[in-house]
């Protein structure tokens, strides 16, 4: 088991490097910070000097090497646009995304799994049919469409029909209302609700369908009949035998899904102006702000790779047939 972990970690590093290199190259091919800097009304000589100062006239590989060595030393450089160190805003963005991701995940995993299990156990009941219908609907809806609809609902709709001057839930930007100072849990939570809900719509649909399929497979397995033939309670049969087996693919899927959180909430964050990693990326991308973008990429890929590893580990841990590798 230990060797398995070591071997996977060993492979993770090249993936990290290769992935970031590909993105590095792609960045350089698709954007030009010099062009973006033209907004700031500078002369051509200044631009050339600018390019030289930033090391952008050196060959790509050299630039990448410089970046990589600095990164692993913990030096993330300064932003082209703000001239400020990259790490603090990046860290804030990361924390914000993780908070939103975790908060939403807690909700949609629990709800999705529960709905899926009940749907499978009571297959074809009204609950199952309703859940299936809603899942299909949730999966068919572009996530930002749902987000827009909720904004209207809690905004103008609420204001006109409930005669209020402020929306039911905040939805414009930030993690706090403009009036809040310092750390305020309630305010923070209020700002999380709508983005988390929007994120959850698709996820609950996915998880419940996935869980339903997984449970149905296990519910029809031979060992279920054996379990019942032993005379144990039906509840134990469902949870200890069926669910425990359905957990295997679920855990793997879940780990990979969560690993995507670090870079994957772009749309939700954009709808609500939530200052997370996705928002950060779009902003930096429009400005071709390489120093901001490159560490961002490393972190995102690292997350994905780490959680993929976790997925494999959980698979091995939950399924005793896979122990030896």
């Amino acid at each position, binding site marked *: 088991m230990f060797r398995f972990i070591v071997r996977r970690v060993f492979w993770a590093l090249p993936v990290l490097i290769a992935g970031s290199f590909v993105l590095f190259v792609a960045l350089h091919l698709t954007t030009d910070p010099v062009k973006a800097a033209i907004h700031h009304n500078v002369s051509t000589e200044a631009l050339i000097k600018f390019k030289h100062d930033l090391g952008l006239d050196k060959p790509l590989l050299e630039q990448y090497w410089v970046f990589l060595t600095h990164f692993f030393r913990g030096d993330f450089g300064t932003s082209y646009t703000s001239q400020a160190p990259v790490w603090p805003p990046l860290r804030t963005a990361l924390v914000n995304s993780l908070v939103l991701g975790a908060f939403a995940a807690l909700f949609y995993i629990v709800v999705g799994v529960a709905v899926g299990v009940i749907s499978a156990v009571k297959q074809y009941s009204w609950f199952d049919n309703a859940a299936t219908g809603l899942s299909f609907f949730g999966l068919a809806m572009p996530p930002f469409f749902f987000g827009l609809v909720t904004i209207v609902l809690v905004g103008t709709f609420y204001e006109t029909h409930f005669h209020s001057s402020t929306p039911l839930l905040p939805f414009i930007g930030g993690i706090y209302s403009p009036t809040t100072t310092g750390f305020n849990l309630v305010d923070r939570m209020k700002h999380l609700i709508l983005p988390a809900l929007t994120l959850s719509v698709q996820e609950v649909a996915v998880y419940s369908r996935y869980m339903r399929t997984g449970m149905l497979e296990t519910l029809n397995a031979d060992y279920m009949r054996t379990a*019942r033939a032993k005379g*144990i*309670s039906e509840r134990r049969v469902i949870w200890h035998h069926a669910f425990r*087996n359905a957990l*295997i693919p679920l855990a793997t899927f879940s780990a990979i899904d969560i690993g995507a959180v670090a870079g994957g909430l772009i749309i939700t964050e954009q709808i609500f102006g939530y200052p997370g990693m996705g928002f950060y990326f779009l902003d930096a991308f429009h400005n071709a702000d390489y120093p901001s973008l490159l560490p961002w990429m490393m972190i995102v890929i690292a997350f994905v790779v780490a959680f993929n590893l976790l997925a494999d580990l959980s698979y091995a841990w939950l*399924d005793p047939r896979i122990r030896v590798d």
Partner: protein
Amino acid sequence: MTSDPVNVDMVPDGATPDARPVAGESVLEIRDLHVTFKTEDGPVFAVRGIDLDVAAGEVLGIVGESGSGKSVTMLAVLGLLPKTATVTGSAKFRGEELLGRKPKDLQRIRGAHIAMIFQDPLTALNPVHKVGKQITEAIRAHRSDMNENEAEVRAIELLDLVGIPRPEVRVRQYPHEFSGGMRQRAMIAMMIANDPDVLIADEPTTALDVTIQAQILELLKSIQERTNTAVVFITHDLGVIARVADRVQVMYAGRVAENASVDDTFHRSRHPYTGGLLASLPSLAGPGQRLKPIVGSPPSMLFPPSGCAFHPRCPLAEEICSGEQPPLRQIDRPKHVTACYFAEKLAKEVDA
């Protein structure tokens, strides 16, 4: 062996006696059992009127081809059929009616009074739980007085009983770490853990090698002799029947063809289907002789044949056979019934 404590939450109609059944007492009595499955293509009539009796300490062998309804019958008794199945009739365990009971009531019977072992031990055991845990689970489902440690001790005893070497090590292993024969032994251990009155074995050796088959049969026989448990042995293999059974019930297309002692079944059969099964055994054909299979193939249970279901394949069939189902009746031998209009004619041929 210790007996079960009287269960306080028992249903009024018939209390499960706490003492072991006496020899000859009827432990399982099935009358007019019908099982129909609802499928996309229409109703499938898997079992069409079965009567069956098992006495304490006796080994009843149920023989039939796939689709004869032999497994379905027993699954129906334990309430282990899917929701698409409709079950009518009566199945009594020591006087207590089992059909139509709530699952909670059946849980008390399953594993403790009537136990069942299944065909493929690899898929029948849960792959993610240790074998020991699966056995202790069976024990503790019916023995609330035992804790996990005590149950594990008992589990090790049971594994030893069924002939698994180094049981204290094996008890902590997973099913995939066992060989096929050992897995079946483990399943047997799991199901006899609570000393059931009836043990149903549904083709327990079909998925195993021939040599292992013999071992498992020996094991079952020794358990049966020692504990005097009634055994219902379901199989399609007449050779197995000859080794283990006291009585034989031959089933065809969801109905009983013949029911007799094992000796009568093999030497004095009174049903053409049984005769056909016996004739098709390779050992009965001398060297150089052709095998004699039964012509045709088993019928689809979506559209069972009218009257006697065997008539399309029967050498003795006449017009009356496709009309009404022949009743199960005794011809000459005691405790030997057969469902054939021409049993007497057959008897003359067979006894000759």
